[in-house]
């Protein structure tokens, strides 16, 4: 884990250093961006943030939505190469099958940056990858809860993501790591809510019934904000006050959870930033203008937000991004 920490620090540092030197920057450069599609609110937000970042930096961004199909992504990347772009960003839809087209990009000396997902290919085929650390997200949430309850006994119920999906596995593991040091905090029930609002509500209703009307539950940890919003509804339906009687902590930082924070119904969320392009552009700037080869894995910050962090402002900032 310490290696991850160091990588994150180094990545963050590189980002800071570069953003100060952005003046000569990437202005006028042509960057192709092959996006997976717009299957989720987060994905749509990533797209709009990337476009906004590109505009801010004066980059001519060529955007291609692959409609969830790898063949479309490969075609788009080939199109970018044929066009002679300066760099390519890819959010790969699957992990396999990228070697050939990335080799072509490499032969054309076009740097490729992977966004938010990894691939199974030799590391020399891409310049760097920008992604979040899902284990860390869970750990940050767990550490917040340990700090928030102090010495008090706290029984936690957990709403898991889709069974077997990597965010569900990693966010569970991270949270368990986060609370491992505190004997007074323990997970008493854990079940999947499939990352959806309706399943989150349904499962939470079950938890409350099973725990004597919710009296035994001190906090709910949800693998994403959507399920947390569902759980908040279930808590209210049971006649309890979410945020006070039962603490609510979740991951993603979508606008709706900030709205819940404004209403005092959610206590903390860990951000999965949609701004993967920012660090990517910074790395490209350093590489194209200074020849600096960035870290192979840039880890984005997993920032914690609580009601003390201006939830109304965060809500306003995010609501237009397409979540």
């Amino acid at each position, binding site marked *: 884990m310490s290696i991850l920490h160091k990588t994150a620090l180094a990545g963050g540092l590189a980002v800071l250093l570069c953003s100060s030197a952005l003046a000569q920057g990437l202005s006028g450069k042509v960057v*192709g961006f092959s996006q997976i599609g717009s299957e989720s609110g987060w994905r749509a937000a990533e797209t709009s943030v990337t476009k906004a970042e590109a505009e801010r930096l004066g980059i*001519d*961004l*060529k*955007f*291609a*939505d*692959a*409609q969830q*199909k*790898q*063949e*479309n992504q*490969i*075609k*788009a990347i*080939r*199109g*970018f*190469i*044929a*066009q*002679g772009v300066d760099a390519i960003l890819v959010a790969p839809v*699957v*992990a*396999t*099958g990228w*070697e*050939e087209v990335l*080799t072509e990009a490499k032969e*054309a000396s076009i740097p490729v940056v992977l966004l938010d997902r990894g691939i*199974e290919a030799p590391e020399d085929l891409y310049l760097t990858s920008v992604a979040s650390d899902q284990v860390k997200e869970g750990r940050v949430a767990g550490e917040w809860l340990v700090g928030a309850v102090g010495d008090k006994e706290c029984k936690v119920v957990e709403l898991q993501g889709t069974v077997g999906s990597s965010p569900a596995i990693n966010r569970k593991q991270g949270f368990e790591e986060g609370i491992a040091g505190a004997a007074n905090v323990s997970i008493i029930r854990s079940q999947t809510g499939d990352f959806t609002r309706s399943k989150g509500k349904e499962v939470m209703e079950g938890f409350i019934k099973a725990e004597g009307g919710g009296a035994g539950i001190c906090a709910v940890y949800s693998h994403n904000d959507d399920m947390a919003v569902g759980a908040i509804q279930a808590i209210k339906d049971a006649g309890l006050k979410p945020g006070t009687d039962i603490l609510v902590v979740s991951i993603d930082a979508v606008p709706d959870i900030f709205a819940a924070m404004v209403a005092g119904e959610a206590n903390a969320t860990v951000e999965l930033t949609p701004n993967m392009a920012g660090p990517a552009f910074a790395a490209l700037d350093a590489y194209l203008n200074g020849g600096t080869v960035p870290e192979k894995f840039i880890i984005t910050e997993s920032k914690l937000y609580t009601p003390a962090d201006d939830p109304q402002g965060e809500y306003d900032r995010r609501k237009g991004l397409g979540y």
Partner: protein
Amino acid sequence: MNRSLRPLLATTIIFVLAYALAVSQYPGLLSTRVLGNFLTDNAFLGIAAVGMTFVILAGGIDLSVGAVIGFTTVLIAVLVMWAGLHPLAAFAVALVVAAAFGATMGAAIAYLQVPAFIVTLAGMFLARGAASVISPDSIGIKHDFYTAVSQTYLLLPGGGRITVIGGLMVAVFVLGALLAHRTRFGSAVYALGGNPTSAALMGVPVPRTTILIYTLSSTLAGLAGAVFSLYTKAGYSLSAVGVELDAIAAVVIGGTLLTGGYGFIAGTFIGVLLQGLVQTYIVFDGSLSSWWTKIVIGGLLFMFILLQRLIFSASAPSRKALWKA
């Protein structure tokens, strides 16, 4: 000029005009690299579209094509990575399985008199479902043969490359054209599409031809699956979703009549290139939503259906005149 060549000519003119227009805006489009990409990136679609042309020429439809491609990629990946077969052996197995699948669908259509739409829809669900049951995850294929194939290409001046799969697609089109226009089977397909009853009266073996047509279509879909697995070096149950519809679009834009009996394999080739051109143009532009591809293809389809209507209603009076005489 032969009237029957008009739709083919129209497609060709539209392609040339569209390409010229696109090049005037983005000169980079006129490079051997882009032309090579047209072949490589559309190889699986083109090969499947040849099979689809035969099916539509005979007045049928095959909705199972995309699912058969997806199934084949998974089957090949499993045979190579889990069973340790050589890819060429895996391809052979996959082609045989696909052919048997097509023959079964053809037999159901020919002997049970069930509409092709329903039978191949069932085939689509079966193949896609089976692929997901074998493995819901994408299976990467690592084999020296795959590496060798991807490193084998004809380098054109200007950096373009004719890859193995791109070349294979062209070969399939040439063989398909010969099969359609120069063989007894080809004539039987056209006769069947024109009018099944009179075809039967003329001595065309209708059930046998029907079975062969769907066998051919599925086999080519299997070949397209092998090409797809070479293209992405992976087997994935959700790959090539909706390719059957792209193939149908390519066939119709290529000037083949949806009711059958009329059309050219060469037209389908241009139909495939036209779709590739639209996609490439949108990538070059970089600000248009990629869904414009669908809108443009939809518009072209509509235009060609209208065009066919016009041509065939224009030929109707002459038939009447013949009867009067």
